[in-house]
């Protein structure tokens, strides 16, 4: 089965955005698990704080997602126009982050934060025009 070109482009965009959301949510979950880095640094020094972050499994998997995201982004930009892919990926990432933060991190995404998410997603599209 062959996909229409626009489906290729949009699958790439969705894939890149999904990787970014997975990466950011995992990093956020890892950091929440660790607790306030300022406190850790006060107690164990900068080296201890860096070590605590780099040995957190969720953080490491999240960072790997972001690394794969970087290369997937290069691929997406090679098959899609920058003027479409860049704002589409950024907007979808912001909206996906808010949904994932509510679902997986159980953050209280109130009306204020939903509104902020929609404004950011729209603002990013307008700014890259």
């Amino acid at each position, binding site marked *: 089965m062959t996909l229409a070109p626009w489906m290729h482009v949009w699958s790439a965009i969705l894939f890149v955005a999904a990787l970014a959301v997975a990466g950011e949510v995992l990093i*956020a979950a890892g950091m929440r698990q660790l607790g306030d880095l300022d406190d850790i640094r006060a107690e164990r020094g900068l080296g201890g704080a860096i070590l605590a972050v780099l040995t957190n499994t969720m953080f490491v998997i999240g960072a790997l997602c972001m690394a794969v995201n970087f290369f997937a982004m290069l691929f997406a930009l090679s098959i899609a126009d920058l003027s479409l892919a860049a704002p589409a990926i950024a907007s979808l990432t912001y909206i996906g*982050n808010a949904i994932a933060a509510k679902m997986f991190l*159980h953050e209280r995404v109130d009306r*204020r934060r939903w509104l*902020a998410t929609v404004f950011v997603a729209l*603002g*990013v*599209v307008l*700014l890259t025009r």
Partner: protein
Amino acid sequence: MKHALKPSQYAILIAIMLTASVGDSLLARGMAQVGAVDVHHLGLLWHALFNPYVDAGIVLLIGFFASYTTALSWADLTFVMPATAFGYVVIALMGKFWLHEQLSLYRWAGIGLIVCAVGFVAGGPSRTEHEALDRMDAGAGPL
């Protein structure tokens, strides 16, 4: 728990806004000097490491990642998100005031929306507090 941010925490949020945008701009400027990199000219990537703009960009992006990670250790993802988006506003304003680029009405509207988004979120708490999360924090805390 935490509703008001400490001055050092505001500094981290401002660092997030500035390091990503200035770092990206420096990388773009450096890579424009290095030239287009493709599969047949991967050696150029090595060459890029000796470009001062690229180096400064990499340092700032490492700084961004460190600040972002720090912020997520005391704030919600949905609280930090508008701060990262503010980087787009910084890039647009740098273009206007340093490079004297003309900003279209669309881009001014985009700036307005992101500024409002930062305002909405900044007015609320930085961290969700409820039992499940408190238990998660307590159970998985380092001490």
